């Protein structure tokens, strides 16, 4: 068996060949510093950055001046929260609303901001991972400065009602930040239609290089600068630009925009084939996330009575790379905070596996994955002392 199936595209993606080709010349041919405007080599680098910026702006229905490049999704999330918090310090605004299922880049930043007297409300989610708009409205205080809700969840793929949230934020004059790291390239995003003020993006989730991301900042938004230094990114995010990475990001977005609907339709078909295949062939499974309001490439199941890490190790032996929300793989005491927030018991959460597809995947790969999972789960269940839901709930 030499089959190799990479089904962990929410973790990162293969950098597309076209992207690499576009990037290469910015290492050794067009290597000028974009700040060096007095000679051609520098100007060429600057032009390349601006071209990528325009690609992104067009893709989001934004203005080029509203797009900033950062070192990735984590930095953008940090910037959004800290930048808005610090701009509001000592102005009577000290409250942020976010959700229990955000990426750690959001959750740990909110924890850090407590040191500065910033309070955070973490919204609950239902069993599908959706927030409750009434709870959101009830959580708004006169001191609320920011609502930060992820577009789509990285573990369970659930897509939030972003437009409705945006309307509520706008009505109350509160800034709205969206972590769109997983959604970019998978869901159509029009920052104006959705009333988004700030949005985090990352290139490596859609076939671009790692270590480069972006932030959309609506014109007029009060936010502090994040990295202080030279005048790059109009003084808001200093540091010599990673020109080749920015070029790669732009190319990845250009490719994603090119064939959007067909690509998403095909991925959705593959996703549903995998969901149905697992449901119909393996007993005692729970689909995590929403049945339909989910990313086109995301499948997340809990396999009762077995544990996720052992599933991953057996999958690896069959050439399949996936991920799990079990504690064993998170390196912490508890299984994934996202799965627990959807109300899953610990035991069931420990048996969760996420498969995230890419365009490289074919139908036969899906069928192979279902067959392989069927064998693996049977093998582990034969070895498990937990045989039913009663055993699972003990303790």
């Amino acid at each position, binding site marked *: 068996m030499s089959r190799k199936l990479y089904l962990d595209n929410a973790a990162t993606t293969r950098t597309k060949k076209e992207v690499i080709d576009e990037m290469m010349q910015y290492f050794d041919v067009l290597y000028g510093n974009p700040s060096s405007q007095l000679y051609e080599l520098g100007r060429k680098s600057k032009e390349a950055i601006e071209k990528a910026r325009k690609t992104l702006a067009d893709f989001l229905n934004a203005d080029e001046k509203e797009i900033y490049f950062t070192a990735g999704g984590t930095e953008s999330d940090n910037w959004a929260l800290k930048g808005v918090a610090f701009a509001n310090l000592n102005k009577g605004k000290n409250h942020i609303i976010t959700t229990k299922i955000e990426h750690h880049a959001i959750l740990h930043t909110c924890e850090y901001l407590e040191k500065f007297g910033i309070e955070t409300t973490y919204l609950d989610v239902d069993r599908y991972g959706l927030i409750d708009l009434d709870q959101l409205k009830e959580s708004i205080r006169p001191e609320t400065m920011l609502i930060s809700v992820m577009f789509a969840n990285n573990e369970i793929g659930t897509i939030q009602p972003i437009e409705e949230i945006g309307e509520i934020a706008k009505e109350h004059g509160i800034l709205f930040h969206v972590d769109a790291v997983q959604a970019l390239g998978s869901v159509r995003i029009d920052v104006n239609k959705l009333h988004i003020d700030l949005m985090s993006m990352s290139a490596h989730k859609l076939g671009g290089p790692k270590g480069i991301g972006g932030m959309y900042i609506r014109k007029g938004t009060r936010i502090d600068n994040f990295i202080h230094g030279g005048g790059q990114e109009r003084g808001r995010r200093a540091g010599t630009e990673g020109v080749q990475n920015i070029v790669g990001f732009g190319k990845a977005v250009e490719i994603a925009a090119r064939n959007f609907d067909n690509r998403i339709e095909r991925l959705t078909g593959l996703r549903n084939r995998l969901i149905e295949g697992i449901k119909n062939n393996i007993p005692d499974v729970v689909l995590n996330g929403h049945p339909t309001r989910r990313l086109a490439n995301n499948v997340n199941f809990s396999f009762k009575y077995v544990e996720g890490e052992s599933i991953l190790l057996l999958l690896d032996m069959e050439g399949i790379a996936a991920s799990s929300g079990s*504690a064993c793989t998170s390196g912490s005491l508890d299984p994934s905070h996202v799965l627990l927030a959807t109300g899953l018991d610990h035991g069931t959460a420990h048996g969760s596996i996420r498969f995230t597809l890419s365009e490289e995947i074919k139908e036969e790969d899906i069928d192979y994955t279902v067959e392989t999972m069927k064998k693996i789960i049977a093998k582990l269940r034969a070895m498990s002392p937990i045989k039913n839901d009663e055993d699972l709930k003990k303790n």
Partner: protein
Amino acid sequence: MYSEIVMDHFRNPRNAGRIEDADGIGQVGNPKCGDIMKIYLKIKDDIIEDVKFETFGCGSAIASSSIATEMIKGKSINEAVEISNKAVVEALGGLPPVKIHCSVLAEQAVKSALYDYAQKTNKVIKGLENYKPEDDEIHCQH
């Protein structure tokens, strides 16, 4: 991340399964923590004639159970009770620090099964005189 021995025991677990007419059964851990080990013993003349395990848990939990059953099979109950988690780790060629609790669980599962046997047969096993299974519950020490 795991040694060759761990992977070998994970891939081909020794003594997986159950013994229907076991003389001693021990179960430790809980689903909340993500590991449960259950050990079944068949004992004749104080010798462990057969042993099986059932484990819910990560790769190292399965490997720890597997090697622990190998280490006690054919041994006397007095020898088996001496099995330490350190011995399990050594036999496995080492475990990552965050997985040491799996070896602790294996030691406890063996002790718990021996204790069950001692209770059922009114025997006193040296080293288990003051053993109480509930004291041995570890609480999600990953």
